């Protein structure tokens, strides 16, 4: 139906993920851009030249940041299924992430002072998800019995119990002092020494693509993220997802309609935990070495913040929220450093303005400082925490639908433009 993008003549057309031409086109372009990102770097293709594009994104630290976004997005998608679709508030996400990370370490890391089986990635990565899902099923009966705000506190307890476990199971986790190393990203058929595809060191693919380790990791994470986005989208628009939503909206009514509450809540926990497990395993491998305190309450809060800022109950929201929450600290840091450079470079209107904000020495007043502890004011990490807390509050008070809600409003404005409706 040309010119009538919203007229669907079949159920398939109505239910498809990208149900208009514009969406299909925009998504293809966006995906193509994401795949192209690592090739923007100078010297990637052949011996000279690179794709025209924002090559700062292709620098090592930005690629790493983008990989982190992908990994957090996987965790956020999981929490979105549990909290956004099934309506079960969980502060225990960090526990399942830690579980995934340590399962992956036992399965994938070589045997040393700590436990490790040295199995290949095609076992340890799904293994992390499966073990987390099994523990999720074990925990679920408690969660089914306990409702609403009580559940939030029970899952809070899960994080503290988990942290205690990780600290004391030091033959697995290495304890608080040294932590433990995690398996590399590399494809092997079995335990052979040379990897079939090595994703954690620089190298050349197909003879002409010179890719850095970060670029390879990024491509792997991108692939997995896209895969899991598709899975969550399909959960959302099929029988299971509708059952989740009916439980979220009114659990007794759902039961009356024949939705087995126990079964579906357990399913929601299992799916969400397996996403968290995968995300934890990937995050630990990306970081390389973790201590038990990595998997603390703050990580859980971060995921709650991601789905709230993005927009609860939508896949798009989970992705938008992750991008926002992970990239923002970096932008704040860059901006603060830029302000400090201006202040230090001397006078001008901006320098005077920024001098009030940035403190550069022990006797220079300012709200922010770049060398924590020496000068007055909040350090950048602390500043990020405050911004982050205020963002959670601000979004909940002013825009409960999150970034997704803002996007909807912008879209609807242009849909009707120049009319207001």
């Amino acid at each position, binding site marked *: 139906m040309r010119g009538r993008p919203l007229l669907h003549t079949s159920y398939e057309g109505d239910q498809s993920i990208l149900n208009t031409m514009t969406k299909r086109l925009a998504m293809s372009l966006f995906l193509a851009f994401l795949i192209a990102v690592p090739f923007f770097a100078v010297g990637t293709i052949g011996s000279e030249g690179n794709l025209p594009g924002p090559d700062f994104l292709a620098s090592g630290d930005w690629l790493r940041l983008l990989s982190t976004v992908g990994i957090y997005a996987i965790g956020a998608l999981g929490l979105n299924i549990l909290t956004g679709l099934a309506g079960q508030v969980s502060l225990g996400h960090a526990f399942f992430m830690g579980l995934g990370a340590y399962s992956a370490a036992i399965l994938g890391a070589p045997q040393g002072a700590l436990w490790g089986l040295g199995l290949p990635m095609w076992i340890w990565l799904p293994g992390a998800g499966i073990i987390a899902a099994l523990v999720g099923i074990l925990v679920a009966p408690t969660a089914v*019995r306990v409702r609403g705000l*009580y559940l939030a*506190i029970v899952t809070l307890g899960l994080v503290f119990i988990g942290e205690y476990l990780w600290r004391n199971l030091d033959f697995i986790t290495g304890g608080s002092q040294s932590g433990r190393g995690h398996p590399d990203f590399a494809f092997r058929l079995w335990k052979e020494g040379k990897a079939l595809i090595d994703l954690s060191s620089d190298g050349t693919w197909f003879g002409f693509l010179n890719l850095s380790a970060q670029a390879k990791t990024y491509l792997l994470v991108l692939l997995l993220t896209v895969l899991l986005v598709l899975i969550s989208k399909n959960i959302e628009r099929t029988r299971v997802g509708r059952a989740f939503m009916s439980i979220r909206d009114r659990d*007794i009514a759902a039961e009356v309609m024949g939705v087995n509450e126990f079964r579906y809540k357990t399913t929601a926990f299992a799916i969400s935990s397996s996403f968290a497990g995968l995300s934890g395993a990937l995050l630990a491998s990306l970081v390389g070495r973790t201590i038990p305190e990595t998997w603390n309450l703050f990580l859980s809060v971060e995921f709650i913040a991601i789905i709230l800022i993005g927009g609860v109950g939508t896949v798009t929201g989970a992705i938008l929220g992750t991008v926002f929450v992970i990239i923002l600290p970096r932008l704040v840091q860059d901006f603060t450093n830029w302000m400090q450079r201006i202040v230090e470079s001397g006078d001008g209107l901006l320098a005077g303005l920024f001098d009030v904000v940035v403190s550069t020495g022990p006797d220079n007043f300012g709200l922010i400082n770049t060398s924590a502890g020496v000068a007055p004011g*909040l350090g950048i990490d602390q500043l990020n*925490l*405050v911004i982050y807390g205020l963002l959670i509050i601000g979004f909940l008070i002013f825009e409960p639908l999150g970034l997704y809600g803002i996007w909807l409003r912008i879209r609807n404005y242009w849909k009707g433009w120049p009319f207001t409706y």
Partner: protein
Amino acid sequence: MTPDLLILAQEGATGSAAAQALVTGLSLGSIYALLAMGFVIIFKATQVLNFAHGALAALGAFLVAALATILDIPGRLFPGWPAWITWVVSLLLALVVAALIGMALERIFIRPMVGEELFAIAIVTLGLDIVIRTILNDFIGVSARPLGNPWGIEVVDLDWVRVAHTEIAQIAVTVALVVGIALFFRTRTGVAMRATAFDQEAARAQGIDVGRIFSLSWGIGAMLAAVAGVFLSVHPRGPAGVSQQTPFVAFAAFPAIVLGGLDSVVGAVVGGFIIGLVQSYSSFLPWAFLGSGFGGVVPYLIMLIVLLIRPYGLFGTEEIRRV
């Protein structure tokens, strides 16, 4: 996670260990009871699960430290007065400021959320917790800030048990506050608060200023949290004073709250003492193989077990589910 909480249980090995653990447990329990009571009052009146309660406790303790030792305001105003009087003056001032901060937080951040999902409001307080804690930590700095309290580290040595003066003060203050709150609920304002807790709209229809009750409950809650924070920051619970760890210690009051039932003041007090006693006694059970920090996890384990048997806590009201 919970450093130094059980310090006296080990020190008092000269006397009867069981009696010593009882004292520690009662004192710990009274702190949890104070935290839980403030929390439950806020929850009952406004339906807000206040995750920022630990931060408010630390804030209250820091206000005392700031007024009594760092700035020493009453000491400068009335140089001739004995030290303990100026300290009590700073304490009272700090409590008033804490209550005002609690009311301000409610007015600015919680009031706009009235009518929203309870979960969303709980997450707002989680955001508040991050903001308050981060800014407070910047003020506190790396090392603990002493409160300069008049009890010091004095102990009453009864031969079979050693009781710190602060512990006597704690238990006495807690009993006084519990009785005070119980009496308060019988006054006109207290009845209004109970009516609001029961049904906000009906209370409003009876001419009760629900907004004022909200403010009041946050004020009382923040003040009780501040008292608990002070006791968490003096010998023997936190010998060095208020530190960056104090809000986390206060997190251990959550199991007490859930144990007693989120909406029961009696439950909060009972739950607080149960958790305190069990935590104290668990420290000298022969459980070395369970590793370090087990005392910190015990409250959560008890909470899980109780919730499996009674999903609404010991004294909580069961939610009636309608279609």
